[in-house]
């Protein structure tokens, strides 16, 4: 106890003086030496490739024989607005469709599930696990499983429709149903994670405000809408932001379930980038696409920082 009192008596100046060695340690050669390996790995695998991608985007790049590459300046970027089908704009809209579905649908669904599951108990605990489990399953394996679920001849989805006397649907081969089918799979896979985030948010908000609202005569919906959800604003912003970023980068399910088809109905920007880079080997054009996708994602990240800052004020 004597030591504690002595510590309490130490002046702020003394604390600052006392921190100096720690600060020196953080900035000293040892600290730099210890950080260097991590920095080196980050530079080699992230920073340099990013810079190199930008350089490639300025060339008509021949990956087979770099000597045959030609500098074309912004040529690849201007091509983005006049390239053949599927165009950059059309793929951007497809990405937007998927992102809107995942962000609006995913946020609403996970919030609803979290509110339903927020009370404890063994059964609800088991349901929480069941909701989260799809998120930890491998995307590749479960995408293939869902291809079978949507198989028009043998799939579970059409079997359910047949039970109700409805005719089957070419889920993944019809341009009207392919994206909703991929969205259904993606929501199944992703919602578990955002439910856990909302549950975390719900566990720390004040219960007293809700109680007060109920005393004042608010019904369940009014309590949720006017009291609970506003308190979850920072969590909602976080969920919206990470859902947006991950949806813009989504690739695996499109690669395995639809291959960007039918008729380009699921060719998102990420898939278009893969197709141009690794199927058609239009490396320079693909690099330009990657740079634009990077800028769009970075803008959303900046937006996240700004929104979080303003909501925390």
């Amino acid at each position, binding site marked *: 106890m004597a030591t504690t009192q002595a510590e309490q008596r130490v002046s702020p100046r003394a604390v600052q003086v006392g921190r100096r060695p720690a600060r020196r340690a953080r900035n000293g050669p040892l600290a730099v030496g210890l950080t260097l390996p991590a920095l080196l790995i980050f530079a080699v695998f992230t920073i340099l490739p990013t810079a190199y991608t930008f350089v490639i985007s300025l060339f008509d790049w*021949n*990956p*087979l*024989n*770099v000597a*045959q590459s030609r500098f074309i300046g912004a040529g690849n970027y201007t091509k983005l607005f006049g390239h*053949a*089908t*599927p165009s950059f704009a059309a793929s951007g809209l497809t990405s937007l469709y998927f992102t809107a579905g995942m962000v609006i649908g995913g946020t609403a669904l996970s919030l609803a599930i979290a509110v339903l599951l927020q009370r404890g108990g063994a059964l609800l605990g088991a349901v929480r696990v069941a909701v989260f489990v799809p998120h930890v399953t491998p995307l590749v394996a479960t995408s*293939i499983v869902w*291809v079978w679920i949507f*198989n*028009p*001849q*043998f799939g579970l989805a059409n079997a359910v429709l047949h039970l109700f006397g409805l005719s089957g649907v*070419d889920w*993944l*081969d*019809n*341009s009207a149903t392919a994206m909703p089918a991929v969205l259904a799979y993606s929501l199944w896979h992703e919602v578990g994670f955002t439910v856990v985030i909302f549950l975390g948010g719900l566990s720390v908000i004040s219960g007293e405000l809700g109680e007060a609202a109920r005393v004042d005569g608010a019904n369940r919906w009014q309590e949720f809408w006017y009291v609970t959800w506003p308190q979850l604003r920072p969590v909602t912003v976080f969920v919206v932001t990470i859902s947006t970023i991950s949806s813009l980068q989504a690739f695996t399910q499109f690669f395995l379930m*639809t*291959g*960007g*088809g*039918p*008729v*380009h109905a699921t*060719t998102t920007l990420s*898939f278009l980038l*893969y*197709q141009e880079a*690794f*199927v*058609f*080997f*239009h490396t320079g054009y693909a690099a330009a696409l990657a740079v634009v996708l990077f800028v769009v994602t970075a803008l959303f990240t900046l937006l996240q920082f700004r929104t979080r800052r303003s909501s925390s004020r």
Partner: protein
Amino acid sequence: MPQSPLTRAVAVLAAGVLAAGGLAGCGAGSSTGKTTVTFMETMSSGTLKSSMEYLTKQFEKQHKDIDVQLVVEPDYPTLRNKETAALAAGKPPTIGQAYSDWAATYAKSQVLVPLDGYAGKADVAALYPGVRSDLYLPSDHKLYMWPFNKSVVIQYYNQKMLSGKGKSAPKTWDEFAATAKAVSGHGTVGVSIDPGTSAGPAGGEAWFEILAAAYGTPVFASDGKPRFTSPAAVQAMTYLADLKKAGALSLGKNYPGQVALGAGKGGFDISSVASYFYNQQAVGGKFPMGTAPLPSGPAGAANQLAGTNIVMFAKASDQEKKAAWTFMKYLSSPDAQAYWASHSGYLPVTPAALPKMADFIAKNPYQKFGADALKTAKADPPYPWVTKAQGELAVAMQSALTGKQTPAAALADAQKQAAAEAKSGE
């Protein structure tokens, strides 16, 4: 945290081991004094893998000074990516499987060796005519490829299902449509296909190309120009759209024809001869699986020479190139081809293999009529844009078969795209 001398010693040792391992991994050449040939290929499963490994071992027994290392990739898109990545890194394999349009792209980038200096006239003459004509590139008319796994398309059918409807293997495409419609219904579909996508045309797209040729006009001219809007192409697409409307054709993914046939829910599978062992496995003896040549169209029989050739990359040393050619020539020899065809399902590239596999042909007649088709089957012309143009056809099929566009309109869109690609020369 202060480090103990022991921790430091362990860290230094670990770093040393890692560095040594890394250096060993970068090492090139053989320490045994043998010439190493690396072969990047896709024979990754089933009898394809075991047959390839067997032939390689046999070759190494006969050529003690050559070590062949198989670099196996799971599928063709991955193979192309790996070959491209290896070329970009300046460390290509000695030889690799390649479709003719890949070879055209590689040759344009000057990373291939012409094989004219290795293959003699007699070597080339020993091959089937259809196979032979697929080895040269039109850019300089040089021999850049050597045949490896060649196939044509045949029809597989459920004999019990067809005879139940009083039908036998159809001889014309009109008969095929009538039979497919007759067996469809109650969960059974005449034929299931996967057209593929713009990123990767699949077997359904190959069938469309064959149909267009059977109606009178192949979809590519010999100079590679697309002819997707010809009356024959429109007729072929209309034929498939009618089957779909009648419920006799279904679209799917992951070899849907094989799956439906194997499950007893499909009348036919229109697929490569290389599917034979896979289809047999899928059927699993539940019913007798029939095989027959493809039906004919108004313009006669048409088929597509599919499969890849082998190319030699320019980076290899003269000694490696010489060893690689010895291996390539061995793979196309009558003995090796007889073994390969009998165990892999692919067709022999030389008629000289047929007498050596007489027993197999007697039990598996598809090999005989498949090999006969090699005399007339045509490969797609070797131009860099062909695969991309086939992707446009796959998109047109998706559009026309799901009723989004009429066959003519869907093909017109594909023609526009493909013509632009052909013009740009990509």
